């Protein structure tokens, strides 16, 4: 498949059209009806949680949050392919993949409410926390890949970055290291057309991102990131490629960020209604729903009931997270070092003395 859709051939890999009709049956990924319906419901859950998080932010109940709206098929497909021992190296906009890795919605809420503990995902293993400096997580993925190869483990790293991140030096260094070392990393570029306000055409003069794979000596593919089947097939093939010891793969998932960059951003300043509408019909969930409907796999009433159940569940989890007390002073210090320097101990004690003084003088 990577030969057929080799990045130099300038073909975007699609299986399903904008209406949800299958246009390339021979590439249909390996997934049965029940798994497909489950995957769809997981994506609906992630989208519902995402929408609700934005409204919690609007209500002043959570801090800055980067919405996932419109990009759920990429995460939903990753969720299906990623095995429990595989590694997830996130950027910050792939909620469906975090949930699949074992993050709970409560963990995620806590993180965006301002608790470091929201980074710990106690139920998960083999992941790195959310990485804010753009593309800086990709060299970590190459390093994890090296450790996997060194220890001869059957694991793959799924590493995320956005289209803006591909302009960073770390993107290039990471791809180069991973290819030279021939380590099992799937680099997933979510090309959602914008880096905050800067359109993709201003990031690179090359014809897309996938083409860059040629220079690094790894397979690269441009795939319709709003086509769940195409994403799933691509990730399945990439995973097999990595597990067979063939080195890394670069996937450029073409998608559209339907929401704002973060809740602090106003997209009306840099894009038009017409553009937003043109992407609306390519919405990943609508397309998959159309397909599922055509196969008679969905039950409208059941779906409405499920969605309502999701909303109640999400709200319950959110309120549980809201009950978390503010982080104690000792937490500011105690995770800094395995072996804490005396200076830090002293600074903590001095501040505690001040707090005691404040208490007794109030």
């Amino acid at each position, binding site marked *: 498949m990577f030969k057929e859709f080799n990045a130099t051939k300038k073909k975007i890999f699609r299986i399903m059209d904008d209406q949800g009709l299958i246009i390339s049956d021979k590439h249909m990924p390996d997934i049965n009806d029940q798994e497909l319906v489950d995957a769809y419901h997981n994506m609906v859950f992630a989208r519902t949680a995402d929408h609700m998080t934005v409204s919690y932010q609007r209500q002043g109940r959570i801090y800055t949050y980067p919405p996932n709206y419109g990009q759920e098929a990429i995460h939903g497909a990753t969720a299906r392919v990623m095995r429990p021992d595989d*590694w997830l*190296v996130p950027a910050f906009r792939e909620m469906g993949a975090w949930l699949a890795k074992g993050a709970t919605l409560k963990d995620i809420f806590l993180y965006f409410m301002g608790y*470091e*503990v929201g*980074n*710990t995902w106690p139920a998960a293993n083999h992941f*790195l*926390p959310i*990485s804010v*400096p753009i593309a*800086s997580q*990709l*060299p*970590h*993925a*190459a*390093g*994890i*890949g*090296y*450790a*996997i190869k*060194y*220890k001869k483990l059957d694991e793959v790293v799924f590493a995320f970055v956005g289209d803006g991140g591909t302009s960073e*030096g*770390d993107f290039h*260094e*990471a791809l*180069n*290291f991973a290819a*030279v070392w021939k380590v099992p990393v799937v680099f997933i570029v979510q090309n959602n057309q914008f880096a905050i306000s800067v359109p993709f055409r201003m990031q690179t003069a090359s014809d897309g991102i996938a083409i860059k794979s040629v220079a690094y000596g790894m397979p690269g593919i441009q795939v319709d990131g709003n086509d769940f089947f195409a994403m799933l097939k691509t990730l399945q093939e990439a995973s097999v490629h990595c597990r067979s010891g063939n080195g890394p793969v670069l996937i450029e998932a073409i998608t559209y960020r339907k929401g704002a960059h973060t809740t602090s951003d106003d997209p009306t300043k840099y894009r038009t209604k017409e553009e937003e509408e043109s992407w609306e019909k390519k919405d990943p969930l609508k397309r998959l729903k159309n397909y599922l409907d055509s196969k008679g796999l969905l039950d409208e009433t059941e779906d409405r009931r499920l969605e309502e159940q999701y909303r109640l569940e999400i709200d319950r989890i959110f309120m549980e997270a809201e009950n978390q007390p503010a982080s104690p002073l000792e*937490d500011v210090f*105690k*995770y*800094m*070092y*395995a*072996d804490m*320097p*005396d*200076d830090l101990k002293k600074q903590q004690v001095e501040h505690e003395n001040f707090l005691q003084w404040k208490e007794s003088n109030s």
Partner: protein
Amino acid sequence: MSMKIMNMVNAINSALDIKLAEDPDIVVYGEDVGVEGGVFRVTEGLQLKYGADRVFDSPLAESAIAGTAIGMAAAGLRPIIEMQFCGFVYPAFNQIISHLARMRNRSRGRIEMPVVVRIPYGGGINALEHHSESMEALYAQIPGLKVVIPSTPADAKGLLISAIESNDPILFMEPKRIYRAIKQEVGEEKFSIPIGKAKIITPGTDVTVVAYGAMVREVQKALPRLKEAGISVELIDLRTIYPMDKETLAQSIRKTGRLVFVAEEPTSFGVGAEIIAMANEEAFLYLQAPPKRVTAFDTIVPLPKGEHHYIISPEKIFYEIQKTVKF
């Protein structure tokens, strides 16, 4: 323990050799460290002994060398990376500052960073631009890092073994001017020297002189003349920049009442400023003279034909110490 004459290059090599043999999770890499054994030959012979998957040349990109080490550490390895020269670390700053120093805190202790970043540093070797600076204060100010600088072959070995065994990220800065200049008997087997503890090299009563790295030797060169002048110097080798052994320093300053700090770093906003602040906080009423920094100018390190102006000489150290004592 059987002893062997070693210079600092041999001693660091010995520490790496011992740890590589002991712990299969240790990997050593960077630019030219594999086949060539590093531009200073510190890793010579290690690839042959431990294989090219454990001691190897990476592509030439400092940010990814540091960044991949972070990933390896998260996945259970204990990488030791070499930054070829101090002036080439800056591309890796984002990785060192934004991730290496923060991953433990960010993950609430779940992901530790047992990474050693080896950095040959300092001037006095007639080098090209970007090869001679002493920017240890930059790293010492970053919360989450530790900064260690040895001054002798034996210290280099003992401190490096501690650094490799530490679960905190350590910047291990090697004073390349004395890589081969000092030879001494060093234990052939494993031994360690604790991080965060300074060493009193010569006890004295008139003035506390704090130095580290290549400057310890320069102070030692000034000692006979100071003795002749009737000045009793307590020379302390800091050994670890952060966390700083303030207790040993403060005790000494309270005893001598005077402090002279000698280092290759630029004068302002540096390790010296921190030590003087500490002297004020911990020994204010004992001070009999203003603390003095004998440090480099706040200028760019001159190229070799001008570097003699910049380098701290034993004469200058003598001059400043006797001035402080006579204050």
